[in-house]
């Protein structure tokens, strides 16, 4: 296996998301998804009959009931029966599964969606259940404390300062002012943010992501459909030129938390270094983690990071990664970038990472 493997060009033909909010009290998951699915099809004037495969990403633990993905399918209306799959992962991995099927050349279009309502339970308790059930979960370590361990390691290694975290948070939320779907959008200078109290040292309040209810959907298309559907909006296709994802070990004690070898490996396999990166949409829920991912991706100073505001402006668990791919594709489709990288993460302290490279046509 080599990064040079010939891949079938697949385009992000359409992207839609609900406005990211702290809590949508009015709608259930199906009602949240329906307008987004309608929009992702409507953008390119297609219907569910035009896609050959459906894949979604979500997790039961966010709503506290088993099989939460089952009813969500009612937002699409899978009748007559459809070829359909689900990953208990961020929607970015659902997109990876769909992309894999499209590589085989037997189908040409797929719908991918993700939903996650982070507001219904206590995320700090819920995410603790991702940890080793024998040695770690019984201690209920919350994700903020684990991220703080990582942030402190970064500081101790001389790789970042608290001011860097504040600068990232400030930039993210300022960028979000341009994003009508963002949840937290505000222009506050880093110096002011540094007056925030610590939540868990060395992470101050601004370095933490908001709690977000979010849903998002993408249509992938290959071949003639990619060109025709982009043309319907007067656009050129945005192609996925490479995608890969990698896992690290679970034991935090066995990892150097200041680096992300899994991101670096995925970036290498996806071919990030094959050209300049105009925009990077990075799924780093904590400001400190952006430092690590940006380094692992090999980004230079001329890359615009998270013009959407990124996860510090809206962090729908299970959908924030898929939204990164959608935002990166939109940046290209609207002429703000020619080549972009999207990143998604899962697990404590960036344990698992996915990298997707997208390119427009000249």
């Amino acid at each position, binding site marked *: 296996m080599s990064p040079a493997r010939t891949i079938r060009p697949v385009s992000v033909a359409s992207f839609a998301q609900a406005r990211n909010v702290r809590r949508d009290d*009015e*709608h259930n998951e199906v*009602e949240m998804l329906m307008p987004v699915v309608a929009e992702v099809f409507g953008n390119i004037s297609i219907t*569910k009959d035009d896609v050959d495969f459906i894949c979604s990403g979500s997790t039961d633990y966010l709503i506290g009931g088993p099989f939460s993905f089952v*009813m969500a399918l009612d937002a699409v*209306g899978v009748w007559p029966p459809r070829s359909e799959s689900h990953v208990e992962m961020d929607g970015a991995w659902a997109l990876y599964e769909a992309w894999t099927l499209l590589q085989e050349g037997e189908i040409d279009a797929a719908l991918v969606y993700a939903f996650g309502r982070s507001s219904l339970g206590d995320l700090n308790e819920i995410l603790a259940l991702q940890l080793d059930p024998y040695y770690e979960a*019984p201690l209920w370590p919350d994700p903020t404390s684990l991220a703080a361990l990582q942030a402190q390691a970064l500081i101790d290694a001389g790789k970042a300062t608290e001011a860097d975290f504040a600068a990232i948070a400030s930039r993210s939320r300022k960028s979000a002012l341009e994003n009508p779907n963002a949840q937290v959008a505000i222009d506050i200078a880093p110096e002011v943010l540094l007056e925030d109290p610590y939540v868990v040292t060395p992470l101050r309040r601004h370095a933490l992501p908001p709690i977000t209810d979010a849903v998002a959907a993408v249509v992938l298309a290959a071949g003639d459909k990619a060109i025709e559907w982009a043309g319907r909006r007067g656009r050129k296709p945005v192609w996925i030129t490479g995608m890969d994802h990698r896992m690290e070990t679970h034991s935090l004690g066995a990892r150097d938390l200041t680096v992300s070898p899994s991101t670096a490996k995925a970036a290498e396999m996806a071919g990030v270094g094959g050209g300049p990166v105009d925009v990077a949409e990075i799924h780093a829920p904590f400001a400190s983690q952006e430092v690590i991912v940006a380094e692992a991706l090999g980004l230079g100073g001329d890359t615009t990071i998270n013009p959407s505001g990124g996860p510090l402006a809206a962090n729908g668990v299970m959908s924030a990664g898929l939204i990164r791919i959608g935002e990166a594709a939109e940046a290209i489709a609207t002429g703000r970038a020619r080549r972009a990288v999207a990143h998604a993460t899962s697990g404590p302290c960036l344990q698992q990472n996915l990298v997707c490279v997208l390119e427009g046509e000249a």
Partner: protein
Amino acid sequence: MTETAHEPVTTLATPIRLDFDFTPGVAQSRFLKGLAKATFMGQRCSVCGKVYVPSRGSCPTDGVPTTDDVELPNTGVVTTYCVVNVPFAGQSIEIPYICAQILLDGANISFMGLLQEIPTDQIRMGMRVEAVWVDEAELTPSLSSVRYFRPTGEPDAEYDTYKEYL
């Protein structure tokens, strides 16, 4: 070293309690509010015309919002059923009991309900039933407003009238 020092640890109990809010959504809220008034509120799909009760807000086959409210009667037919004889944690009903699929008159989907006031060996597919509501003072926007269903005593429905709902 004592003998027990060599025995493996086979069990580690981690009590987990998580509390969640539940958001019923627009359509289910209408259904719940109906229950508080001792009525079954359904919704009709504008594409296929089918009536869903309770509606989750979308037509499962068309994937479009269901918006037309339909008030359904108190009566319906048992399409199929089973007799539950399994004790389980959280069970609030004395076993054995009848768990029936009930198709309300005018609805196009059945839902599961408890059937009482009939010996478990006398239940039949096609039996006509009606909802028994709690006292008016106890009505709440929840399924606990329906105490149970019971036979109406009317003649059974013909198999052909409900077979497409099996």
